[in-house]
């Protein structure tokens, strides 16, 4: 066989594209012809070198693809909407906490200042008593309407020698806490 033919067959053998019978015949021929075997080995060698060189070069691309795939999977596993929602809830909670703490501190001071002068239990006044005193003014009427809506136990001890305005503020504050 000519060198060209042997090299073509050697390429096919290296690529695994020659069927078993043809490969056996080819190997038998090479065993009998050392020069042909040398040509075939050269071709086989260049085939493997090319294969290795390209594999080496492209391994980087594959590794990158694998890494990207792993990263994208990892990122995919995280449920970003729920993470965002949780973060927003947490931030909102912290904000509310700080605000409440700040407001609670200042409110407490005010409350103490307001509550301290409150004297002990005096004569119990009813709404009808208060009506006589405060009816007729805007804030008086408003307070009386609100007081009438309250359970009787609550206002019994509350209003005792305190200005009407303070009583009304106190009531509004309590209402807000409720």
């Amino acid at each position, binding site marked *: 066989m000519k060198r060209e033919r042997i*090299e*073509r067959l050697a*390429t*096919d053998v290296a*690529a695994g*594209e020659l069927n078993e019978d043809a490969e056996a015949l080819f190997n038998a021929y090479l065993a009998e012809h050392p020069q042909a075997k040398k040509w075939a080995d*050269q*071709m086989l060698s*260049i*085939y*493997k*070198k*090319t*294969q*290795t*060189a*390209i*594999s*080496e*070069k*492209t*391994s*980087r*691309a*594959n*590794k*990158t*693809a*694998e890494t*990207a*795939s792993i990263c994208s999977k990892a990122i995919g596993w995280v449920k970003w909407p729920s993470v965002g929602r949780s973060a927003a809830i947490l931030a909102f909670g912290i904000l509310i906490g700080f605000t409440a703490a700040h407001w609670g501190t200042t409110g407490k001071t005010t409350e103490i200042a307001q509550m301290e002068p409150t004297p002990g239990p005096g004569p119990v006044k009813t709404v009808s008593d208060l009506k006589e005193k405060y009816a007729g003014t805007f804030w008086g009427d408003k307070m009386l309407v609100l007081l009438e809506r309250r359970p009787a136990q609550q206002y019994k001890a509350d209003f005792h020698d305190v200005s009407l305005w303070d009583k009304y503020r106190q009531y509004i504050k309590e209402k807000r806490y409720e």
Partner: protein
Amino acid sequence: MTRRFRAEFEKLWGQTSSRISAYMFCACGNRTDTDDLVQECYLRALRGWEQFNCRGSRQAWLFAIARRTRVDWHRKNRKRKAVVGLDNVDEPSDGLKKPNTDQIETIWEAVKNLDEEQSEVIHLRFAAGLSYVEIAQALGIAVGTVRSRLHRALKTIRRQIEEQNNEA
């Protein structure tokens, strides 16, 4: 998107993504463009999924799309030259005798200097790992043509290695 279609596409992706990446890397030689080309290739495959006529294998069809994607990329980037460093080349993991770094560079340069037809065959064979028949289907040529192009390409590469050895 039906469940069956998704399953088929994901299966094809699993079977071919690394080889498509390698094939694209041979064309552009850098990671970023490789990712872009792979993405473009699979997008085209997704769009043309119904156009597959079942005459060849799905993989061959996909590599035909990959080839067209590469050709389009080359048209757009004629002036760009693929530059590939060796910083990330790994040590040999199997028992085969590996070519040294210079030889790898020489072979890589030789492959780049091949004409378009031969380098296509080399890339499809060595980077994508396609058989002669699949290469023929992807390129739309006869199997005999694939065989002869591969052989001529290898001879050219051998000549370049010999020349370099003589110079050294």
